[in-house]
């Protein structure tokens, strides 16, 4: 196997549905050979793949400095539109039954498994070793299966019938917080991304996600997986762009109920927490550097995105 990531990516691309732009732009085909068709990476809002309204882009470069692809540099307006889509999708998704949500999560895993080679190639082209990339992709598929299984179980683990002293039937259940903005981890382009999206949507929230700025390719390809997995439009919306520019908007938007920041930069955490207070937004900070194994999953990742609702009902005639 060729050690050059560009070439291996091209090979992988030829094997699967999507090739990367880099393969087109950098590889020099021999005379008479077929020219690979590159993919344009766009953002994902309301089940559609528009370009950023701003028309801006940033070049994604590999370690040698060569351009892999032009990535949408999402704007604050893109974010606002994504929040509208997420809010619009919330009523339907939050009333979708747990069994069906679980099946849809499982369907995402199936579709990702089928396109695994493409994701390995994208991770490799963004600088991950081939072996680690392969491990990351299978771990991501397994993580989706894991949360598919939780969809109709976390409620039973965390809800309660409360033995109040008066003559009432009183119970507490979990309900989704609503629209969640997610600043995905910068250094884990696929597993870290999915480890934050999956528990949020398993818990019936809808979300707007900012992909890793330096590793955005898998996020957009993952959007394609979502789009073909019966995930309703608006449930997951994915932007690419600069976290420095957009984090404040993700934290301060008045129609977002919670913000997840995956990362350990103290200044960024403070910025997010400060702006989140505008509408008493819940802030969830995940500082782990590894998303592998039990540190990257668990029912408490779902519970973090839930409100507890308590209902009182009289008992008697």
């Amino acid at each position, binding site marked *: 196997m060729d050690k050059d990531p560009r070439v291996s990516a091209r090979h992988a691309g030829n094997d699967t549905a999507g090739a990367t732009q880099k393969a087109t732009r950098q590889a020099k085909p021999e005379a008479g050979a077929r020219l690979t068709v590159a993919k344009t990476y766009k953002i994902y809002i309301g089940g559609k793949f528009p370009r950023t309204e701003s028309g801006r882009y940033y070049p994604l470069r590999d370690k040698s400095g060569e351009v892999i692809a032009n990535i949408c540099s999402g704007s604050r307006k893109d974010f606002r539109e994504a929040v509208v889509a997420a809010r619009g999708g919330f009523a339907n998704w939050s009333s979708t039954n747990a069994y069906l949500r679980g099946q849809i999560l499982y369907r995402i895993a199936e579709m990702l498994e089928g396109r695994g080679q493409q994701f390995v190639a994208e991770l490799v082209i963004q600088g991950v070793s081939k072996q680690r990339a392969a491990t990351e992709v299978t771990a991501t598929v397994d993580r989706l299966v894991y949360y598919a299984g939780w969809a109709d179980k976390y409620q039973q683990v965390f809800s309660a019938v409360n033995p109040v002293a008066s003559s009432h039937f009183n119970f*507490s259940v979990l309900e989704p917080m609503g629209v969640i903005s997610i600043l995905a981890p910068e250094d884990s382009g696929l597993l870290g991304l999915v480890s934050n999206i999956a528990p949020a949507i398993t818990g019936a929230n809808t979300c707007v996600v900012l992909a890793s700025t330096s590793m955005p390719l898998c996020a957009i390809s993952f959007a394609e997986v979502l789009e073909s997995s019966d995930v309703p439009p608006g449930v997951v919306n994915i932007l690419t762009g600069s976290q420095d520019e957009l984090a404040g908007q993700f934290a301060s938007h008045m129609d977002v109920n919670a913000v997840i920041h995956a990362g350990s930069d103290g200044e960024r955490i403070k910025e997010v*927490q400060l702006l989140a*207070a505008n509408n008493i937004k819940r802030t969830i900070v995940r500082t782990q550097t590894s998303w592998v194994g039990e540190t990257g999953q668990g*029912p408490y990742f779902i519970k973090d995105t839930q409100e*507890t609702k308590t*209902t009182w009902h009289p008992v008697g005639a």
Partner: protein
Amino acid sequence: MVRELGKLDFKGTWQYAAAPESTDHVQLGDRYDLFIDGDFVAPAAGKYFDTISPSTEKVLASVALSSNVDVDRAVKAARGACRVWGRMKPAERGKYIYRIARIIQERAREFAVIESMDGGKPIRESRDVDLPLVAAHFFYYAGWADKLEYAFPGKRPAPLGVAGQIIPWNFPLLMAAWKIAPALACGNTVVLKPAETTPLTALKLAEVIRDADVPPGVVNIVTGAGETGAAIVEHSDVDKIAFTGSTDVGRQIQKALAGTAKKYTLELGGKAANIIFEDAAIDQAVEGIVDGIFFNQGHVCCAGSRLLVQESVADEVLGKLKDRMETLIVGDPLDKNTDIGAINSPRQLEKIESYLALGRTEGAEMYQSSVAVPDTGYWCRPTLFTGVSQSNRVVQEEIFGPVLAVQTFRTMAEGIDKANNTPYGLSGGVWTDKGAKIFHMTQKIRAGVIWANTFNKFDPTSPFGGYKESGVGREGGLHGLDAYLSLG
């Protein structure tokens, strides 16, 4: 027989003789110091402020005004006590909390009277609601102390350390119990600040804690106003902040805590919809409306301050509600007949009255009962506004007084939309005879506590807390433990 609406004459025929609760057994000092490290100590700056009775306007006692120095001293005492309290056998910790519960039960009558004197709430409520719930909270959480690992599957819960707790004036002792009981059960130590208008029962609770032989420094009580609260929030050696109060102050606290490792819970404002369907038991619903908005003078964050009544029964409900409002007695909090006591402070009365003026300016029609109110003290007659629209400020903003905004709806969907059209999400009420409708409504209202065919019920086993701008986290029940533990 259909009776003629709004025409019942209650005047002259329904007189109650005065039935005042005796204050003879109450032991109140002239001056109260800070409770730090197991002792009552004078504030460093030597300053005191008066706490008055809102029903008589008389000074009840003078109370220490804490400075940053005092708060620092209290936090140091709390930190020092972590060594003892956090490492004590959990079952023994629980036994101390049981002792607190028992002593409160023994002294319940005295505490209820002081609560009504200092805060203005009717003795019927402080005696029958506040005090029983205070004891119940300590009993409930005492039992959790040695069972915490069962509450969080797969986790190893550990105490956070020092909890800074800031509580409001509407349920002074009950809020202290809500805060202190779970904190202690989870192995934390406490610095608690009661509200400046209602410090007395918290200071009497300090006596109970001392008499229960709780180790020095485990609970510290510092009195003062906003600056004292800010000093607790900003203190670098506090691990957790628990605040109950307004959304504005909650927002400031959330900002102040940004970038720190402090965990926090916020129980903030509300503007709950109480939704009456045409198939409800109307007389019961009217009682529910009264409990919802006039309980504790409407000084309740989860008050049912927005009445949403289905259009087809609006006239009937309003007629019966006005009749019922006419029977409510406003006056001496210590009189056992009193339904609505004194407004907690002149500042709060001013705020309520500004909303009464605002509602009329906005074009709403105001109705007040004709009840006579005493000459001295701070009072507000039960009030409702009709002819309001969703954007009116009396519909959108928390008034925190006995003031109800009335709107109508036709369909269930319209009722849900109006109920949820608010930045708050603390509570809600639904009145209907149809079970399926109840569950549809209780699922669709975006709020943390929903009462179906009842309102304003509380229990230590029942988690309480809001969605959206009504706060973060839950207090009460198993879910209330989370706020005081590190789950590792």
